[in-house]
C-alpha cells in the first residue's frame, strides 16, 4: 500500500493522470481505424521534433529567469541561420544538404548567443516580472522577424515568392536542403550506406534515430553542464540570490548565461524541428512556440523555479504524445467535413497549456 503511495507521490498525480489518458488514447486509436504503427511513428517523430526546443526551458528556469517564453528569439535566430544557409548554397549553385545543416547551425548559434546576451541584460533589469517580459519579448521577436523576412535580399527561388521576386515565402520546402536528413527513411535511403542507420523502419514504425540521438546528446551535454562548476553556480543563482552572492558568484552574470544557453538551444531546436518537419515556417507560425515548450516542461513536472532533464524527456512525450494521438481520434469522432475538429484541436492544445500553467504554483514549492 505505502509502496504504491510512494510511487504515486514520486511521479505526481498530474503526470499519472495525463500518462493514463495518453495510454488510453493509444489503446482506443486502433478501434477508431488508426494504425497503431502510425501512431507510434508519429509520437516518436513529434517527441524528437520538439525535444531540443523544450530542453531550452531548463537553463532558463535554473538560472532564475523563469520559464522562457521568449525562446522565440532563438527560434528567429535559427530561422535566419537556415534561410541564410540555403541562400548560400543557391548563390554557389550547389545542392548540399549536410553543408546546409552545418551552416544553418554555424550562423544561428552565434547569432542566438548575441541575442540571448542582450535579452539577458534586459531580463536583469526587470527582476521579478521576467515571465511577463519574456512573453512580450517572444511576441516582439516574431513581429520584428516579419520585417526581416520581407527585407532580406535573398534570391533563391526556394525562399522567395516566385512572382514578386522579393519577400520570403510563408513556408519553405526543405526537400532540396536538409529536410528529413536525419529522420526520414525515404531521404536517408539516398545517403551512403554507412549513414542508413539515421532513420529506418522496424515493423512499420519509423525510428528517426539520428534526431533522437542528437536530442539525447543535447540532453547529456546539458546534464553535464548542470553538474559542472558553472552549472551548479547557475542553478544556485536561480534558487537563492543571497546564498549565491555570499559565495562570490555574480547572480546577474549567471542569469545572462542561462538566458544565452536557452536562446541558443531555441535556435538549434527550431533547426532540428524544421529538419524533421521538412519545412521552415516563417512569419507568425512560431508565435506560440514558446507556450508549447513551456506547457511540455510543466507537464513533465517542472516548476517555474526548478526544471530537470527528466522533466523535459517526460513532458515532451506526454504533451506532444497527447496532441498527436488525441487529434486523429477526435477527427474520426466528428462528422466529416465539419470544422469542429479544428476547434477542438485548439481547445485541447491550449487547454493543456492552461492546465500546465495553472499548476505552476504549489506542488513542490510549498514552503516549510
Amino acid at each position, binding site marked *: 500500500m505505502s509502496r504504491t503511495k510512494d510511487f504515486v*507521490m514520486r511521479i505526481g498525480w498530474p503526470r499519472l493522470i495525463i500518462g493514463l489518458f495518453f495510454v488510453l488514447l493509444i489503446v482506443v486509436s486502433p478501434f477508431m481505424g488508426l494504425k497503431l504503427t502510425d501512431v507510434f511513428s508519429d509520437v516518436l517523430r513529434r517527441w524528437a521534433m520538439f525535444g531540443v526546443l523544450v530542453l531550452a526551458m531548463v537553463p532558463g528556469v535554473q538560472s532564475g529567469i523563469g520559464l522562457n517564453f521568449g525562446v522565440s528569439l532563438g527560434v528567429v535566430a535559427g530561422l535566419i541561420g537556415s534561410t541564410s544557409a540555403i541562400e548560400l548554397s543557391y548563390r554557389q549553385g550547389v545542392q548540399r544538404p549536410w553543408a546546409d545543416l552545418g551552416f544553418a547551425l554555424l550562423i544561428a548559434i552565434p547569432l542566438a548567443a548575441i541575442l540571448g546576451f542582450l535579452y539577458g541584460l534586459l531580463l536583469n533589469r526587470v527582476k521579478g516580472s521576467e515571465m511577463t517580459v519574456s512573453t512580450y519579448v517572444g511576441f516582439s521577436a516574431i513581429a520584428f522577424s516579419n520585417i526581416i523576412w520581407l527585407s532580406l535580399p535573398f534570391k533563391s527561388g526556394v525562399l522567395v515568392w516566385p512572382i514578386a521576386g522579393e519577400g520570403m515565402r510563408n513556408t519553405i520546402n526543405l526537400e532540396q536542403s536538409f529536410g528529413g536528413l536525419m529522420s526520414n527513411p525515404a531521404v536517408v535511403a539516398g545517403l551512403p550506406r554507412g549513414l542508413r542507420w539515421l532513420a529506418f523502419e522496424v515493423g512499420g514504425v519509423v525510428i528517426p534515430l539520428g534526431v533522437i540521438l542528437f536530442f539525447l546528446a543535447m540532453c547529456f551535454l546539458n546534464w553535464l553542464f548542470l553538474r*559542472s562548476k558553472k552549472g551548479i553556480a547557475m542553478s544556485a543563482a536561480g534558487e*537563492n540570490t543571497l*546564498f549565491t552572492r*555570499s559565495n*562570490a558568484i555574480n547572480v546577474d552574470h549567471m542569469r545572462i548565461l542561462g538566458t544565452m544557453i536557452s536562446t541558443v538551444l531555441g535556435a538549434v531546436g527550431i533547426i532540428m524541428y524544421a529538419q524533421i518537419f521538412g519545412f521552415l515556417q516563417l512569419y507568425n507560425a512560431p508565435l506560440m512556440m514558446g507556450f508549447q515548450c513551456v506547457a511540455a516542461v510543466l507537464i513533465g513536472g517542472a516548476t517555474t523555479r526548478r526544471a530537470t532533464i527528466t522533466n523535459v524527456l517526460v513532458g515532451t512525450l506526454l504533451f506532444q504524445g497527447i496532441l498527436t494521438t488525441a487529434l486523429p481520434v477526435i477527427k474520426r469522432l466528428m462528422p466529416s467535413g465539419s470544422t469542429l475538429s479544428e476547434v477542438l484541436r485548439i481547445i485541447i492544445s491550449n487547454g493543456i497549456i492552461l492546465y500546465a500553467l495553472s499548476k505552476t504554483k504549489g506542488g513542490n514549492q510549498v514552503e516549510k
Partner: protein
Amino acid sequence: MEGPPILSMKGISKEFFGNQVLKNVDLIARPGEIHALVGENGAGKSTLMNILFGMPVIHSTGGFKGEIEIGGEKVTIANPHEAMNHGIGMVHQEFMLIPDFSITENIKVGREIGKPTMLSKFLGSSMDILDRRAMSKDAQNALSRIGMSIEDYVKVAGLPIGYKQFVEIAREIDKTGIKLLVFDEPTAVLTESEAERLLDIMRRIARQGIAIIFITHRLDEVLAVADSLTILRDGELIERTMTKDMTVVEIAGKMIGRKVERLVDVADTVRELDDDTVALELRNFSVAMPGEQVSQMDVSVKKGEIFGFGGLAGQGKIGIINGIMGLYPSEGDALVFGKKLQLDRLGDALRNGMAFVSEDRRGVGLLLNESIERNIIFSSMQIHNKFLWKRGPFSTLNRKQSKEHALKMIRLLDIRCTGPNQKSRSLSGGNQQKVCLARALTMDPNILIVAEPTRGIDIGAKKLVLEHLVKLNAEKGVTIVIISSELVELRSVCDRIAIVAEGKVSQILPPDASDAAFGLAMSGMSIHDAEGEGEVHHE
C-alpha cells in the same frame, strides 16, 4: 492546572517517505497552563506542531496517524485557517510581519474590520472601507494585554527584533476566541533581557486562561516558566511530567538518553596565542545594514584567538559579518593578516582564506531545495575548485569525493538525516544550522566567522559545535570569531569578548569579567564610566 485539557493529541505517528519521525506521541495542554515541549534537534517537535496546524507539508507527504481533540471534541484540521478557527495560534520563529505596514495593520492583517460602503451593498464586503479607529482600538487592546506600550501606528520595519516578536504575539492574541498559543523557539533570536521579557508576557497570557505550548532549547527557561513538560526523543514520547519535579540536568539526560555531566564542557587545551600577528583588523569600519548598523568600528583580532562579539540585538554585531561578507555596503578598511580586503569585489574575503556562517540560515546559509551534500561542498567547490573532476574543458562535480566528504561531515557534526541526498529544506532547524557550519568548515579557512552558531540547536549539539570550534582552533590554529546573542556561550569559549553598542565596540572584556561589567558594556558604558557618573550624582 487541573481540569479538562483544551488540547489533546493522541497516538500521533508520522512518517516522511518511510522515515518515521513521530511514534505514537501524546500531547496534552490545559487552559492557563504553560506546557514545554523539549527534545533534541530532529526529535519531531516542529513536525508535531505542523500536524496540529494542518500544514500543507503534512498533507503533501501522506498525512499522519492519530487523533486530535480540542475542548474534548475530536476534530480534523485540514489547514492553518481551520486551526485558527479552532482558537489555535502560532508565534513563528522566523517573523511573518510585513515591514511596510504599521503595527496595527500587521496585527489586523487578514482580519481587517470593515465599514460598509455604498459599493459593498452590491459587490460584497470586499468593497468595505477599513474602520481604522476600531482596528487601532483592537490593536491597542492586544498590545496592552501583553503589557506593551508602543504607538500602534509605527511602521514595523524599523522596530528592534524583540519588539517584532511582541507584535507577532499581539497579532495572535487579537484573534477572537484564542485558546491555545504555540511558541516555536521564540527566544532563539532574542537577547537574554528580551527573552526575560517574553517569558513575562507568556505568564501574563497564561493567566488569562490561554494554554501555551512552548518549544525551546533553553532549559533554564523551561524551569522558569513552564508548569509541565513533554520530552520527546527520536520521535518517541519519553515523559510528561510537572516541571517542579525536574532539574535541568535531569531533563537534558532524558532528552539525550544518556547522562549529561556539564552543559557546556569545553576541554582545557594548551594553545599558543600569537600576540604579535593580527588576523583580522577593522579600521573605521561602517556597514549600512538596516537594523544592524555598524558605525566606524575599530577592533583587531589576534591570530589563533577565539574572539567574541556580543551585545543587544540591533546594536550592530550582526552587521559586522554581513559587511565583511559583502552582502551589505561597507566603508572603511577590513584587513586580513595585514592585507586590505576589497569588499566591493564579490567574495574577496572568501578568497583570502575566510569562511562564514550567516545568522540567517534559511535566507543566506542554505540552498533549501538542494541536497545536504551539495550544500556542504558548494563554497569549497566554487572558491577553491575542490570536489571537481577535470576532463578537458569540462570540470564536473566529483560525486564520489563529495559524497564521502558529506558523510564525514554528517558524522562529525552529528547531522540527523536520512543521508547526504536529503534536501536541506526537510531537515529540522537545528540540523540545518549544522549543515551551514559544515559548509564553512569545508572551506578549511584561516579565519572563521560564525554568527549565532548555536541558534536553535539542542544542548547536546551545542556542546558538540562549540567543542568542535575550540578543537579547530587548538589543532589547526584557526582564528575564530563568534558573534552571538548568548553571553553564556561566548564566555564559555572566547578569549576576549567585544560588546557592541550603537555600532561600535563599547568594551572588550575577558570572559571572566563580572556580570555587571557586561551589563554596563551592553548599554554602552564601562564600569569606570558608571563609577564616574556615580560621583557626579554625589556632588
